[in-house]
């Protein structure tokens, strides 16, 4: 048992990998077995992730970074996995979404094509690997794992829309992967290492020439990450691809942009923190302004959208933009707010994607367009308001559930009370306004307020769009078809929404945790020490 405890950190990668490989040996007709096994693995992953979270958040804030040396080779030569608070949070989030999406898929989606379970498990391999790895090239590999699985999953179920969207998604991400490779190799070419922590120790000592090329590499790498994170103007593929994906896939995709955000957060603080010498704060302005542009574009898209699924896609952009901007702000308070926001928005968007499928199941396709045209021409038939007519029709329980969930999602996405969306946004805004972050005068001042205005406007746009679509869907007599909803689907959506409720209730401790996380991210010495106990042993190859 102690052995297992030591190796627990690798299980989030190895377990789904083994399970996925094993499923390949089973015939596709034994889908129930596959489904059961996959769900079991998802549950196990959740348990493991939570355990790891507890381990990472031990009593001392900084000492609990755990590193795992693959193949028993010392860092920075071998590949290391690093578990800290941030990666633990991401693991937990991933397994939550995975569980919800998988349970949801039991209703019908897992039958929509071959090898769904394997692809899904491999996606988890990629996600967990990307969150855990401490090596830049290994990160590339896990990115490719998760992207490849996502290509498969985005196309799961086929159809014209999926294939068209999938084609764009694939091409854009292939191009981005190329940039990733160029960036990583350029960095290796001038620093001689791939280990992130080792890189952090080497950067301050680089000469001007090497620094120049290292930064160029980081810039190219940054573009690749920003494509995945969905920063404007690199994000036009995103709403289309996410909207086209089947519901459970889109739900788990809501963490995919967060991988980009995660790695930007990780690397910008590890490599370009205040200790990075001349490279300190490299690119933070790009993140700030790019994030703001992304919020602006996302909110415009939310308003302009005609379908719920596209709306959800644009919400992803808004949340990405918000996170990028918060990282660009660059203080620990903003980071902790951003982390809280990250958890909240990921859960909310995932729930919304699942819900979208349930709601749109019962609608006629033109209804969304109608929502706007009705608004445009308004109603003058107030004479109709007579007592006789004003008797509520019987709303079946399903519709009540869908309506309630819709309202919850709307509140979460718009950042309105009483759910955690409001708290997340508030935490973020109060951190951004904190004088310690931005100072009070000069252009920074304007930026602060523009950012806050954007955050508020994005909430507003979500509110307007959700009201528009919600009224059309749930209140309009045109929409009488009540969709058939399976129990597992209800369970999945409720699970995610209840977690948001729990997040609201336990906002205090969660935010405290995030604050500790942010502090440790802003002071990466502990991370580096954990990976390189001998303090950058790479100087001399002989340990």
């Amino acid at each position: 048992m102690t052995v297992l405890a030591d190796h627990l950190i690798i299980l989030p990668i190895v377990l789904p990998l083994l399970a996925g490989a094993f499923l390949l040996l089973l015939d596709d007709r034994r889908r129930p077995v596959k489904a059961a096994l996959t769900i079991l693995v998802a549950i196990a992953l959740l348990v493991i992730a939570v355990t790891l979270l507890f381990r990472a958040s031990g009593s001392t804030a900084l000492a609990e970074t755990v590193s795992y040396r693959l193949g028993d080779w010392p860092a920075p030569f071998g590949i290391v996995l690093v578990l800290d608070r941030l990666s633990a949070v991401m693991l937990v989030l991933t397994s939550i979404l995975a569980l919800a999406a998988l349970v949801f898929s039991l209703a019908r989606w897992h039958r929509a094509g071959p090898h769904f379970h394997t692809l899904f498990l491999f996606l988890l391999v990629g996600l967990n690997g990307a969150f855990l790895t401490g090596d830049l090239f290994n990160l590339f590999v896990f990115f490719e794992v998760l992207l490849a699985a996502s290509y498969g999953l985005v196309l799961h179920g086929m159809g014209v829309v999926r294939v068209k969207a999938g084609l764009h998604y694939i091409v854009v991400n292939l191009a981005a992967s190329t940039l990733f490779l160029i960036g990583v190799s350029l960095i290796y070419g001038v620093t001689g290492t791939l280990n992130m922590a080792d890189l952090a120790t080497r950067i301050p000592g680089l000469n001007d020439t090497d620094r120049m090329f290292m930064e160029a590499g980081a810039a190219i790498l940054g573009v690749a990450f920003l494509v995945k994170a969905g920063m404007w103007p690199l994000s036009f593929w995103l709403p289309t691809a996410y909207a086209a994906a089947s519901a459970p896939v889109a739900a788990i995709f809501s963490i995919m942009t967060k991988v980009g955000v995660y790695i930007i957060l990780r690397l910008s603080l590890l490599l370009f923190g205040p200790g990075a010498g001349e490279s300190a704060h490299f690119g933070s302005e790009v993140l700030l302004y790019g994030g703001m542009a992304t919020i602006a574009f996302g909110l415009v898209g939310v308003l302009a959208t005609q379908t719920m699924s596209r709306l959800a896609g644009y919400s992803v952009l808004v949340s990405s933009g918000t996170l990028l901007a918060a990282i660009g702000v660059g203080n620990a308070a903003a980071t902790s707010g951003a982390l809280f926001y990250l958890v909240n928005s990921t859960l909310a968007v995932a729930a919304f994607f699942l819900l979208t499928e349930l709601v749109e199941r019962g609608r006629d396709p033109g209804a969304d367009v109608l929502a706007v045209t009705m608004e445009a021409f308004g109603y003058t038939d107030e004479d109709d308001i007579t007592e006789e007519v004003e008797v509520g029709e019987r709303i079946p329980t399903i519709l009540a559930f869908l309506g309630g969930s819709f309202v919850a999602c709307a509140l979460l996405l718009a950042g309105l009370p009483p759910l955690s969306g409001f708290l997340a946004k508030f935490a973020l805004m109060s951190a951004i306004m904190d004088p310690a972050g931005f100072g009070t005068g000069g252009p920074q001042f304007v930026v602060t307020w523009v950012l806050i205005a954007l955050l508020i406007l994005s909430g507003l746009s979500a509110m307007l769009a959700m009201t528009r679509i919600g009224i059309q869907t749930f209140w309009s007599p045109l929409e009488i078809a009540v969709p058939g909803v399976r129990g597992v689907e209800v369970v999945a959506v409720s699970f995610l929404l209840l977690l948001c409720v729990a997040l609201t209730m336990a906002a205090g401790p969660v935010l405290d945790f995030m604050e500790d996380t942010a502090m440790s991210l802003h002071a990466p010495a502990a991370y580096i020490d954990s990976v390189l106990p001998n303090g950058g042993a790479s100087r001399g190859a002989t340990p």
Partner: protein
Amino acid sequence: MEIIIAVAIGVLTGSGLWLLLRPRTFQVIIGLALISYATNLFIFGMGRLRSNAPPILEPGGSSDLATLADPLPQALVLTAIVISFAMTALFLVVLLASRGLTGTDHVDGRETDL
């Protein structure tokens, strides 16, 4: 030697990018392949160029970075080759599916541009 490889990388990238920006899926796939050659050469070049020094150890021979080529970029390129092969296959099939379903080989699934 470096200048030859640099020019090769440049031309492969340029040709690949030109194709990547074209509207036909087949052009795009050829473009991606060319870009992947360029990328592989680029990664490879980051370990510096060296002739007649493959990182294969010989008994009693040296095992020093000063006399042998850098093995790490080679390993990275190997991974990159595999992945780009896989992606080429995937993209090919997706473009076939797209062509089958939309009736066109335009990247947008409809004829919007020449």
